[in-house]
């Protein structure tokens, strides 16, 4: 039986529905040591900003039960260094690239998208409107992310869509009352897909020192711990959106990935678990093929949103 894993994610052709989550795969080089990364449906790069960023001071990372908290704060080489030093490797490998971007204003996002398109730096744009680690937790109450305000989501999306013809994915935050509102706003703004979810806000305290574990106090929670939250949000959004979903949050195995696909995700991203098991994305591609074979499904698109209620 010949199985097709090809999917079209809002205009981005992917040879299979598996990519990696921004910030958990850098720019691909390291993990290419463990498997041929061009076999992935796409490689999503670490958030790029106009200027390089040093990120937050350490400590930035702590393990939690079945997950981790991070407060990296979008340390990245900046878009120009990416285009010069990182992109050639990805292009030489023949990877499909999702260029994740982060800016301080709609204009910055637009500029980033434009640069990426102009330089062939990405095949699609993922706009990170939901990073919890770029605010100082001491002052930002509850944190205020663009993705927490549907009207802003719409505005930012419009700005990015106006700047580029590349498919635009909008990455949303789980820290909302109803993620459908944010997703609908992205769709109204012209987004070609939504990516969900970014990390959940969280923190930890060391009782012995009585100090926060992360220097930025608050960080983003990821890993299998949050998977049920992510599956729920994908399912909610899938019921109300026309545009497709890139699902993520705690995916470790093909079976996890299938939960997202059945809930309505057109494609999936493997995040934190890749730190533990660098070959996980590749194993998931194989696992999805096995699943389709076992279930006699010739085209994985038939399984998108196919949960029987």
């Amino acid at each position: 039986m010949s199985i097709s894993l090809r999917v079209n994610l809002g205009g981005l052709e992917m040879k299979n529905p598996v990519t990696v989550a921004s910030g958990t795969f850098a720019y691909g080089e390291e993990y290419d040591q463990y498997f041929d990364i061009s076999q992935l449906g796409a490689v999503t790069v670490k958030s790029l900003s106009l200027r390089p960023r040093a990120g937050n001071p350490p400590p930035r990372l702590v393990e939690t039960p079945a997950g981790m908290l991070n407060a990296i704060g979008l340390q990245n080489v900046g878009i120009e260094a990416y285009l010069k030093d990182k992109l050639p490797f990805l292009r030489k490998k023949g990877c499909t690239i999702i260029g994740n971007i982060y800016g301080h204003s709609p204009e910055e996002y637009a500029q980033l998208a434009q640069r990426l398109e102009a330089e062939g730096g990405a095949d699609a744009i993922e706009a990170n409107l939901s990073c919890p680690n770029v605010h100082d937790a001491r002052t930002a109450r509850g944190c205020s992310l663009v993705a927490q305000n549907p009207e802003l989501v719409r505005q930012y999306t419009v700005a990015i869509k106006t700047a580029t013809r590349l498919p635009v994915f909008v990455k949303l935050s789980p820290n909302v009352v109803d993620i459908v509102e944010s997703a609908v706003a992205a769709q109204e703004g012209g987004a070609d897909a939504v990516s969900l979810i970014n990390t959940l806000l969280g923190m930890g305290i060391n009782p012995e020192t009585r100090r926060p574990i992360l220097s930025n106090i608050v960080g983003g929670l990821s890993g299998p711990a949050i998977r049920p939250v992510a599956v729920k949000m994908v399912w909610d959004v899938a019921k109300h959106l026309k545009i497709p979903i890139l699902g993520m949050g705690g995916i470790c195995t093909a079976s996890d990935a299938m939960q997202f696909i059945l809930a309505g995700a057109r494609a999936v991203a493997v995040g934190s678990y890749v730190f533990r098991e660098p070959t996980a994305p590749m194993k998931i591609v194989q696992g999805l093929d096995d699943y389709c074979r076992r279930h006699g499904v010739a085209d994985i698109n038939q399984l998108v949103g196919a949960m029987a209620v």
Partner: protein
Amino acid sequence: MPHLADCRIMSNQEIAPEHYRLTLHAPQIAAESAAGQFCMIEVRPGYAPFLRRPMSFERIFNDGFSILYRVQGEGTRLMAMMSSGQVLNIQGPLGKPFPLNPTYQRHILVAGGIGIAPFPALGDAIVRTLGKTPEIVIAARTERLLLCEKDFRQMGCRVHFVTDDGSAGEKGLASDGLLRLNPGPDCVVYACGPMPMLKAVHAVCAARGAVCYASLEAEMACGDGVCLGCVVESNVEVEYERMVRVCKDGPIFDTRIIRWDAY
């Protein structure tokens, strides 16, 4: 290039209270590893613990390597329960090795507590590659935790003990032990241990004009330069190069690079 390999445990023995030596069969990893590098150990299947645990190579053999570890929390406690014949998934070698430079007269190793772990391999390398005999300061809380004496005696090293409680050797800190050896510009100092100790050792070296390489620790997710979680602050002026990754840019750093006042 790092590998991912299922490695059989050859032995796992308690060598001091809460301290173990684990030997693994891992010919491929061993063939490419050098003193100062480390591996990431998947403690067990399942998501507890979620992340791998970084461990330095204690000694590197033809067919594998050993690590020396202290029971610290959940991961190492589970490791201590494992027995020979069982299999661990290992990622390695990772990080940069200790630089070996024949121009220095004296090679001084300074170990605080479990910071002794990477030094048997380093001692071996100094003896074999440079044909020199290192000196070593072994510091620990108390006598029973002074590890690896025999290894260094066998290399012919001068061994200086320092203990917090004075139960053996000099009473004091690792940096006090180093001072006694009167380091100078003809010395290269290699240090491994807790951050405050490294800071003190760096201060001694800076004052005496000795170069110092320290093996740093930081909580790690990927061990491979990807997650940017394990950084420490450096003195680099360029804003976005200020954060250096312990796993990839280290774990061995020339201590002049570290912004010690942040620690």
